[in-house]
């Protein structure tokens, strides 16, 4: 079997700038094949964005301690020199964000920004780069693309800006796209447009995508596999189908149960997960979910559970998966 295109081995990210070290990522193992989309889901502060930034080495180097290994296309990312790193960013791995205005420069037209980005990576003429920018705008379905290339980011609507940012990200033919909640701030009607566009581009360019979200629905629309993060660790991982139909980690089950959705009885109380996530500057010794878990027993608090393969398809970081079997589909009202 071929090696996965992107691979994280025991990734650790600790921020050391504050009073006590903040352990944002605590041993993440993740693989993404060529042409595969993996959704990373979890509540805020669980370490999703920090993980993505670690792949591009975007966390502030002086105040960050990194452990583990990041391999992309067979190359060790931690070992890249400055020049190789600049080529790697954008040329090999590109990133899109929730807020496109952070990625786009307000003082240049979109056409200039894309043309510039291409010419930073390849020795081609301005005119040719502009042609490619135009075809990218067509590809992400921006209406009147020729005219839109000459506009500034603030002159576009939210959905159009999101498309322009995707075009910019794809400008240098990356193999990997890191998407950090690119649809969270959008209206439902525009969100589904962008989700379907990403699916299409992924197929057409054979991209590997890591799609960060805290919306299970958005994850299902784009992802082959789903990884659930909690307190800096992946606590469950599997195909989208297995995660939705037969999850085995109590946190994943809790997330699915607490969703308000169409099939449920109106006015019934939701099965909320009580409590809140642990302090990353003071993580418990054992399972980080124990304080909120109704199945927690003493061993859970003593030892850090390993990811184990369950018989229903997912891998779960839990000591008591013998207690977590549900009827397939039960949790989503199927």
């Amino acid at each position, binding site marked *: 079997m071929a090696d996965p295109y992107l691979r994280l081995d025991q990734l650790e990210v600790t921020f050391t700038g504050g009073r006590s070290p903040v352990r944002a990522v605590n041993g993440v193992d993740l693989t993404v094949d060529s042409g595969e989309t993996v959704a990373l889901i979890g509540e805020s502060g669980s370490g999703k964005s920090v993980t993505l930034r670690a792949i591009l080495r975007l966390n502030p180097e002086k105040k960050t301690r990194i452990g583990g290994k990041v391999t992309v296309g067979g190359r060790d990312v931690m070992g890249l020199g400055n020049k190789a790193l600049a080529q790697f960013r954008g040329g090999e791995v590109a990133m899109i964000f929730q807020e496109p205005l952070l990625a786009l420069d307000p003082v240049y037209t979109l056409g200039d920004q894309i043309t510039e980005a291409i010419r930073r990576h390849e020795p081609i003429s301005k005119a040719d780069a502009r042609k490619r920018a135009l075809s990218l705008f067509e590809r992400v379905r921006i209406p009147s693309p020729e005219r839109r290339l000459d506009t500034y980011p603030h002159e576009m609507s939210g959905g159009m800006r999101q498309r322009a940012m995707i075009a910019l990200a794809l400008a240098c033919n990356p193999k990997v796209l890191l998407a950090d909640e690119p649809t969270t701030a959008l209206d439902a009607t525009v969100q589904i447009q962008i989700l*379907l566009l990403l699916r299409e581009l992924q197929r057409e360019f054979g991209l590997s995508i890591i799609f960060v979200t805290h919306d299970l629905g958005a994850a299902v629309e784009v992802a082959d596999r789903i990884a659930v993060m909690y307190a800096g660790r992946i606590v469950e991982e599997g195909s989208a189908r297995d995660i939705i139909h037969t999850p085995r980690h109590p946190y994943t089950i809790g997330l699915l149960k607490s969703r308000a959705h169409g099939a449920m009885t109106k006015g019934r*109380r939701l099965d909320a997960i009580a409590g809140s996530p642990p302090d990353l500057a003071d993580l418990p010794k054992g399972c980080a979910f124990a304080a909120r878990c109704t199945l927690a027993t003493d061993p859970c608090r003593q030892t850090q559970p390993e990811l184990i393969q369950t018989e229903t398809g997912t891998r779960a970081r839990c000591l008591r998966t013998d207690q977590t079997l549900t009827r397939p589909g039960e949790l989503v009202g199927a």
Partner: protein
Amino acid sequence: MSRQPLLQVRGLKKHFPLERKLFGGAGKTVHAVDGVDFDVLEGETLGVVGESGCGKSTTARLLMHLIDPTIGTIVFDGAPVENTRLSLRNYRRRVQMVFQDSYSSLNPRLTIEASIAFGPEVHGTPKKEALARTHDLLERVGLEPARFAERYPHELSGGQRQRVNIARALALQPKVIILDEAVSALDKSVEAQVLNLLLDLKEEFGLTYVFISHDLNVVQFVSDRVMVMYLGKIAELGRSETVFGNARHPYSTALLSSMPSIDPDNRTQHVPLAGDPPNPIDPPAGCRFHTRCAHAETVCSLTEPPLAQVEPDHQAACHMGVAGSGHSRAPEARTAAAAE
């Protein structure tokens, strides 16, 4: 139980004039809310949905009398709300609001107990009594007073701050609470906790909610009736089951089919609605939705469809539901048939 309208909104408009450009050009106007009529019934939860910019928050601010309408009336409990300080103060005791941004709506220099007790004290409740009520409310919203009462807003999580905002809204014992994206910024696990809290409080205090959200799953879960807005107008209004199960306005249908699927074997295949929401500065003539509607016909760009009854407790503003409107899918006009 027959439900009385607690709030009656008639012909309500809010236009915001835009600054003139330096050279020439007539001043333009944002038609944020452009003629809406609806009731909020006592004890119900009225859900309000629609794309950003369609006028949801402006409607909320009008209901709160935080801004004055360009034209139109709001009747509360049978009496129009007078625009005097005394009557506004009275009104705001009965109608409270919770915003999306839990942080900026709390005074950073006040402890949360001081923030919550502030309203009742201004309205003349003795300090001691106000504080006792505050601790009661903190308890009710799941924040143990001994641990939380003396904290400042920055010492709380987003979910905890939103609970404080809800407690503060309840402190004046209102009848109506307007929740504008009140759970939208919360994580799903916290959102569920706050939604449960809202359900419990509603029952306990006999509250009426106007619940604004872009999350259709949540709106379906909490609402008795749902109002769908498009570019400053009501597109559809009816019982939640009816609107979600049998939408009659093409915009509602498109909005509902934009909800992501949770079934990996049955993902969304086609974009339900192309394009972005248009600009409320120059709303299209006729039906405002005709520029994006798959069923648009000539009549749609010429005549504005009225918000018409399509079945009991269910209204939609679409020519397809108006007999004799001239749309090929409209029912035959009965009067025309009778005249034969």
